[in-house]
């Protein structure tokens, strides 16, 4: 122990850079393996875009777990609901979606995304009050309750929209690619990257620079103490849960546009994907979730290009490798 004088600043926690270097190193290693630099750039851009979308969907899950110690197995339902709500907005404005003008397209896209977020967030309110409130602190029941919620939500989507796949065409101005020399980067991926980065920066700013974020981080560390200081932690929980659900809804819209289709089974598939991401990142860590999402997307894209057969199990291999290295994920949240 070193002695600290009262005037000395508090010792800063050591920055853990290894996880941040991991995706960068992975990308660099891939340059000789992929061969042509232009293909590599395209693949890297694709991974970043896909990773940002996965991050938007997974961030809510990890945030909710970190603050509330609740693992929501029904998180995928919010994603699917978001996507379905967007199809509702798109349907009456087909002409605007097909118009060849970025601003006209965005005039439909933005309200659709906002409405999806609002509906998912409102659904989050209902789910938190009805399903999760009675079982705070009981992991087994939480898993069962939220899995039940997933079944009901998915079946309700089937009942309302039918079992068929709904096409969700990308707005005209977002089709095609930017061509820089011999590198082609799809326009929609650039948009996805921008939105993903904006969400990540916004979350980081709120968590690290505002009083609200201070309370949330304090709640993660020690719930009772925050309550003892007179803050209503339950209300904070609810706010975080609704934000997480709304982000899942936004992610759902983006994923639906990426795949250009909507189906209720997307909630199952994406649940598995975001679980892998959240485990890799370390349950409860936003930074870890971000890196985990990009790693998963990189392995999917590079792996799919180099060894297509391997892509099927690449997520699991990645997860096993990361957990061998750090058994609690890239950034372990200490209080859990």
């Amino acid at each position: 122990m070193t002695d600290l004088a009262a005037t000395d600043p508090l010792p800063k926690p050591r920055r853990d850079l290894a996880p941040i270097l991991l995706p960068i190193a992975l990308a660099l290693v891939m340059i000789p393996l992929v061969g042509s630099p232009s293909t590599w750039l395209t693949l890297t851009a694709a991974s970043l875009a896909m990773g940002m979308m996965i991050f938007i969907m997974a961030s809510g899950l990890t945030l909710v777990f970190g603050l509330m110690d609740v693992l929501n197995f029904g998180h995928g339902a919010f994603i699917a609901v978001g996507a379905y709500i967007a199809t509702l907005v798109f349907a009456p404005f087909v002409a605007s979606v097909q118009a060849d003008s970025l601003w006209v397209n965005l005039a439909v896209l933005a309200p659709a995304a906002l409405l999806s977020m609002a509906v998912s967030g409102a659904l989050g309110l209902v789910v938190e009050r009805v399903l999760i409130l009675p079982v705070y602190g009981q992991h087994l029941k939480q898993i069962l309750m939220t899995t039940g919620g997933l079944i009901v939500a998915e079946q309700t989507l089937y009942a309302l929209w039918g079992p068929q796949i709904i096409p969700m065409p990308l707005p005209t101005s977002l089709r095609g690619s930017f061509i820089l020399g011999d590198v082609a980067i799809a326009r929609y991926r650039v948009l996805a990257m921008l939105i993903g980065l904006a969400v990540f920066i916004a979350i980081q700013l709120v968590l690290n620079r505002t009083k609200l974020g201070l309370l949330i981080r304090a709640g993660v560390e020690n719930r009772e103490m925050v309550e003892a200081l007179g803050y209503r932690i339950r209300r904070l929980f609810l706010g975080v849960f609704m934000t997480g659900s709304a982000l899942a809804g936004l992610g759902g819209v983006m994923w639906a546009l990426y795949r250009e289709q909507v189906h209720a089974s997307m909630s199952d598939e994406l649940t598995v994907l975001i679980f892998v991401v959240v485990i890799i990142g370390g349950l409860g860590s936003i930074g870890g979730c971000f890196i985990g999402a990009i790693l998963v997307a990189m392995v999917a894209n590079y792996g799919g290009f180099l060894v297509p057969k391997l892509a099927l199990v690449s997520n699991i291999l990645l997860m096993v490798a990361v957990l061998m290295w750090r058994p609690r994920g890239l950034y372990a949240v200490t209080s859990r």
Partner: protein
Amino acid sequence: MMILSGDPPKSRVLTLILVVIILALAATPFLFPGAKALNVAAKICVFAALVASYDLLLGYTGSVSFAHTMFYGIGSYAIAIALYGMGPNWAAVATGIVVGLPLAALLALAIGLFSLRVAAIFFAMITLAVASAFQVLASQLSWLTGGEDGRSFQLPELLRPGTVLISKNLFGFEINGRILTFYLVFAISALMILALLRVVNSPFGRVLQAIRENRFRAEALGFRTVFHLTYANCIAALVAASAGILNALWLRYAGPDTSLSFSIMLDILLMVVIGGMGTIYGAIIGATIFILAQNYLQSLMGVASKAASEAGLPLLPGLLHPDRWLLWLGLLFIASVYFFPTGVVGRLRHGRADKSAGASH
């Protein structure tokens, strides 16, 4: 008492229901003629054993696994691939069993050692991820598994429907290979459930319950909890794989939809929770209710849906459509987790306990 390992149903109503279910299952070939009734009965047997093995994990150790269908699928595929590749003979059946069961146990061991060290939530997530990867693998390796189509195969001579063992003019019933297969399924499922009762009532089972109640305390008392949990996971996987073998033998088919899909996993969860976690008997009740509902509730809902659409009600026809029966069971599932987490069995036992408590006052 011996055969039930000193753990009787402990409720008169429950005993009665169980006796009725078991007698009805045993007598199905004679009481309810027709292929559908026999199929439903065989499915109830297989699922009762499968759900009981899941109950060992969920009800007795308190860990949620989403990989149970994976083990079930390993059993199904092992026997199907063996019989498909080697032709319909008993050597193939033996090969399927000898390959399938150890494979399931080894995989369970690996998953257990890897993920049971940490919290229950971690185990749930890891199993979900591994199971989904396995499902993708099974549908992609089509040279081995037949892909989405699965593998159909023929049974050995003795178990085929065409084989008449006892002709009709002896008892008035024809005993053929199909009925023999049914009794094989029935007997092995019953044996597995009795064996699981034995396991949960052994000292080992007590330790599992101690871990469920308070893992740290169990560890402090000197039990190596990881070892116990992993062991339980392996036993559950073995029983699940055996149930998979029985299911494949009965259906003469193994494919992703009948043995691997995520929806079967959800079905198992529903059955164990509705029947009653941590009771083993709950598995029989849960499987019976669920599979009867699956097979007969749907036609009822079809009628209701039609009536609703003829009455011109909005939304209701869609909600009552026969394909949406899982919606209603999902609601029932949430309600039962919330209002009676001990399920039907716990409810029946509890009611009795309350009454006897009232009588003693």
